[in-house]
């Protein structure tokens, strides 16, 4: 086993190295460069462009640039952004990441939970008319042409109904006198969300073994209430009280993007849950449970759902990796300047240091997720374990 992990780690480093080189070559293959606009300004002396290229080291041959980039990367030096010079890519990521994390943590929690609930019900009501129609609707909400749908949502809720703000993450007039930067508030909100989620999961885990279904539900509900009361006290005491209005403003602006992405994203989880749960329902032990005369609800919640959860959770872990990737469109349409927009901007502006840093950031995440998944599969499934060692 250790040998396997060791070999896997070693491969991982090689893959990452290849990834860096590949990405750099890709960026370099884009015609022109970040300073091409200088070529289009006739007022500049002809050598101004070459001078800038030399300043940013772009006049060196490609092989030399790739080599020095990779070397510097492992030294922890990511260079300067071309567009936002003299900011470093790390500064830019640190500024953008909290916004993306907050928005998409919310989206994922909500869409995962609703998706799982709906999928559970769908699988159970299998064959009924309502199941068919709900499934078909979910499929279309899953395959809806997303940018178009998001613009329509913005138009309907933001303009036609005038219920929600049109994009952005705050109302400027509320922040004129704010002593805080929005990033501070975002970080606080992320901490809060993480803690509340952890408590919620703990409640779920600790009540798992309670036999009586109604007791379990009551305990869970009380736990949930306590969590809410706790949150209420949190936001009304000390430091958080001062930040409450700002956090509230951000939360209000989050409703529309979260709603929009959830409508599209929940169906994925729902359909997956439906499938896996239908598979589980055919398993022998469910038949046994039925034969034992256990109630329908009990079978559904206790036996079937729990086992169907495993593949769904696995897929959930993988979707976290694609969060930043998928946020490009959402962030642009809802004027939410996060990681997605940073990637898009840096790629379109050929701001290679920033683009490389954001790509590596996502790459590292993806790599670790695959690594963990691989190791745990190998650990859980003896067939694969033997294969891999052989």
């Amino acid at each position, binding site marked *: 086993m250790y040998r396997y992990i060791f070999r896997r780690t070693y*491969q991982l480093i*090689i*893959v990452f190295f*290849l*990834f860096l080189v*590949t*990405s750099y070559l*890709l*960026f370099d*293959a*884009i*015609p022109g460069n970040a300073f091409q606009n200088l070529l289009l300004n006739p007022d500049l002396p002809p050598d101004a462009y070459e001078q800038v290229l030399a300043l940013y080291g772009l006049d060196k041959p490609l092989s030399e640039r790739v080599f020095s980039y990779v070397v510097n990367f492992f030294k922890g030096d990511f260079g300067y952004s071309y567009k936002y010079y003299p900011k470093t890519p790390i500064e830019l990521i640190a500024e953008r990441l909290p916004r993306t994390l907050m928005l998409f943590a919310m989206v994922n929690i909500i869409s995962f939970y609703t998706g799982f609930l709906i999928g559970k019900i769908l699988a159970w009501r*299998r*064959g009924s008319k309502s199941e*068919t129609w709900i*499934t*078909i609707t979910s*499929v*279309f909400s*899953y*395959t*809806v*042409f*997303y*940018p*178009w*749908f998001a*613009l*329509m949502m913005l*138009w309907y809720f933001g*303009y*036609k109904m005038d219920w929600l703000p049109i994009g952005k993450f705050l109302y400027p007039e509320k922040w004129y006198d704010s002593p805080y930067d929005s990033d501070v508030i975002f970080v606080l909100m992320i901490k809060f969300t993480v803690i509340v989620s952890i408590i919620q999961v703990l409640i779920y885990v600790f009540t798992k073994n309670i036999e009586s279904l109604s007791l379990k539900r009551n305990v869970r509900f009380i736990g949930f209430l306590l969590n809410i009361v706790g949150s209420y006290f949190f936001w009304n005491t000390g430091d958080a009280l001062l930040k409450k209005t700002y956090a509230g403003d951000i939360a209000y602006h989050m409703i529309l993007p979260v709603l929009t992405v959830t409508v599209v994203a929940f169906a994925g989880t729902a*359909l997956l849950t439906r*499938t896996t749960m*239908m*598979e589980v329902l*055919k*398993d022998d032990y469910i038949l046994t449970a039925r034969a034992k005369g256990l109630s329908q609800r009990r079978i559904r919640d206790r036996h079937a759902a729990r086992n169907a959860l495993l593949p769904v959770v696995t897929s959930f872990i993988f979707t976290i990796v*694609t969060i*930043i*990737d*998928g946020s*490009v*469109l959402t962030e642009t349409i809802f004027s939410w300047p996060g990681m997605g927009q940073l*990637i*898009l901007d840096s*790629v*379109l502006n050929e701001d290679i240091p920033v*683009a490389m840093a954001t*790509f590596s950031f*996502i*790459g590292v995440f*993806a*790599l670790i997720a*695959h690594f963990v998944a691989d190791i745990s599969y190998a650990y859980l499934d003896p*067939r*694969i374990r033997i*294969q891999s060692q*052989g």
Partner: protein
Amino acid sequence: MKNNNNKIEKKLRREAFSKNWKLFKQSRLGMVGLYIVFFFFILTILQPILFITGFWNEAVYHPVVGYDDLTSDFIVVDCPKEYPTEKYQSRTDCPARNEVNIKTLFYNTAEVGDTIELNLQPAPPSRRHILGTDSLGRDVFSQIMEGSQVAFLLGILSATLGVGISTLLGTIAAFYGGRIDAYLMRQSDLVLMLPTLPLLFIISAFAELKIWHLAVVLGTIGGLGGSVITIKSQALQVKVKPFVDSARITGGSNMKILFSHVLPNVAPLALLFMVFSVTGAIASESVLSFLGLLNIEMSWGLMIYLAQVEGFIFSGMKYWWLILPAGLSVTFLTGGFYLVGRGLDEVFNPRLRKR
């Protein structure tokens, strides 16, 4: 003897097919999907037929360079600042039908009160253009049909290519294991690490992406990525089945085992992947067109992009024929393929069938 074998095989295959078809027919989802896909397929082949039979004149109905000279007379008015007036109840009533606000005239020397002839584009649906025309005077219905051709071509081409690659690599990885397996898996890791949408931006920036190229790019990215891993694990499960061992014991060569035992058992999963990747390919094309990153002449994404570039997207439902048909086409065709996939899933996965 051989002939007889063949006959039996054929008969078995036919039986298997009709059995699977029966199962598929039982899946309501699959059938709904199939109807949708079939509907768009009709649209796809209808357009060339209309052109060949001369029912449609190409100069007018061509989706890219067609132009219909629809004009109408308009009276030039100057909208008042205060409302209500005798003629108009509110600001939204001015200009009324057959009137044009002088403020929105461009390089036209007309005075208030003149009657001028203006183009009617984008023209609303009429008997001549059942889905109206776009702002360049091109028939929207014809564009939808052209977009449908693009979607089918792109979707099926890239899905076939992608699934072909991933099935081949996945089975090879499972079957040979060792270094080959490690190499192929790390290659998938590498492809998966690159964020898809930005990667496509980059590729579209340095390569001139036509439909064929895009299909190859999407197919390759899809084929080298995560599906290899899934197909591999499926193939691994097949590999450890007893019949593979017995084939080995009876002296079957690796190649023969691969092609006659492992591949057929992986095929259903591959077919499933294929149907789902059609969905992905069409959606990717639409998004790229929507962002104005592709240099293709017509597609559904491009139609919406043009409606947006020209400022129609937030017109509410006033110019619905520029926005809804293309948006719904993307949604329904991808959804249709997805539903077919679900239906197939129920055919190939016995545990999903009805109780």
